[in-house]
């Protein structure tokens, strides 16, 4: 189980350039552009799934997230630098729809590795200084069989597609594993063949540290300290906060609880 410690914030489109130069100066690291595709699946709602397993332990139904990087050659742009992030302000993605569609439905012949992860709801507690969310992950390197695709396998596993999204943005690898990323999110609507920009007019900011083992208290404390340091350095410029944990709840059927 990996523990992710994070803090979030947001800025508007016009502040992007300044933020990038600020963080570059602060960290001494160059900005790196990135693009990811995420496919989120839920347990088949028609299935009658028990809340407990055979050992009578409570097991919540949770979403499965499949994630894959999008290579730059698939992004239509004149230059590949962080600057393209500020030009992407529309609903249309500069990526071919067919490519995204094929990512989880194509057969193994030309597939690239993807990660499969299951997340928990972030830890509760009023005085949390950072958001703490644990996750388990596996890396899918290939698919096979006569129905060879990640999607086909998830269906056999008892999961059906829920939603998909693309993240494009800029990130900084700061000291000791701290990652600072600024990105936009597009919802990819498969049935209507459309994409829409969810983060219109602005960017989401996420600063995080991954800790390999949930039990490694020292590393957790160290990561928390790093995030709080960053928060302090950026004080009165951007306010890095702990988001409401309910917004990050990957479990199914808990919307009515709140």
């Amino acid at each position: 189980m990996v523990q992710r410690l994070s803090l979030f914030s947001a800025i508007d489109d016009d502040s992007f350039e300044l933020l990038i130069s600020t963080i570059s100066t602060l960290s001494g690291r160059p900005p790196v552009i990135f693009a990811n595709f995420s496919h989120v699946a839920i347990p088949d709602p028609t299935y009658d799934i028990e809340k407990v397993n055979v050992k009578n332990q409570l097991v919540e139904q949770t979403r499965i997230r499949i994630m894959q990087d999008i290579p730059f050659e698939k992004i239509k742009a004149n230059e590949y630098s962080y600057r393209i992030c500020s030009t992407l302000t529309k609903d249309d993605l500069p990526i071919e729809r067919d490519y995204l569609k094929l990512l989880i439905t194509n057969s193994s012949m030309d597939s690239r590795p993807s990660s499969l992860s299951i997340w928990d709801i972030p830890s509760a507690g009023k005085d949390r200084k950072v958001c703490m969310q644990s996750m388990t992950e596996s890396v899918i390197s290939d698919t096979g069989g006569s129905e060879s695709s990640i999607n086909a396998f998830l269906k056999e596993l008892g999961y059906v597609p829920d939603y998909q999204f693309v993240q494009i943005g800029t990130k900084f690898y700061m000291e000791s594993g701290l990652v600072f990323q600024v990105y936009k999110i597009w919802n990819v609507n498969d049935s209507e063949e459309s994409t829409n920009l969810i983060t219109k007019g602005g960017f989401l900011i996420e600063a995080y540290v991954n800790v390999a083992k949930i039990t490694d208290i020292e590393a957790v404390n160290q990561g928390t300290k790093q995030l709080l340091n960053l928060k302090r350095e950026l004080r009165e410029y951007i306010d890095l906060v702990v988001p409401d944990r309910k917004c990050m709840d990957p479990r199914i059927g808990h919307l009515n609880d709140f």
Partner: protein
Amino acid sequence: MKQTAVIFIEKATPSTITQFHDVLSTHVISVQEKWSFELKTFRSSVKNIPSDDTRVMYSLTLTHRDNQTVTIKKHSAIVTGHHVTEQLTSNGCSTGFPESFDNIITSKLSNIWTQRQSIKGDFGSSYKTSDLVVRAANVFSSSGFKGLLLELEGDESSEMDFDTKVETIQSLLDEISSREFKLSKDRMKDTEPNFLCDLAYQYVKVLD
């Protein structure tokens, strides 16, 4: 593409592996690394599953194939491993600390999947002959000894037909009077060979 076959001799005794080693020894060029496998069977605990659907899923982990795990359900399979590519971690898609997929099934997906059985072959031997890599291991389940398993892997450089090579092994088994066995050379999809998925499929076929 390398070809594989898996043979399971149920009517073996724990010492059949030594007999097999003896008859094979004249063909052996070198003795290679020890290997292990584990085949886990999972059963769906969903009550209203469509009647045409299978309830069983298998996951096979092979130490000699980079510890990769193949999970097979019906006509679909995925290969999961411990290697994380640079692309995935640098893009933030992976944290760089992956677990094997059967672990995730037994923990996070145990409301849908229940582990039924675990069949293991630990510390088996591998022999390289002039045209095959032969791996042999005694198979155990929780109830005890199950039989002898052989994994045959064709060598691409050898020109001899893979079926003939398998037959030579079969005749060796004849010599030690193990005539009854299950053999699988099947592929999950005939037109599209996939080394690891096909191999796992053969394990499932003979051990199930």
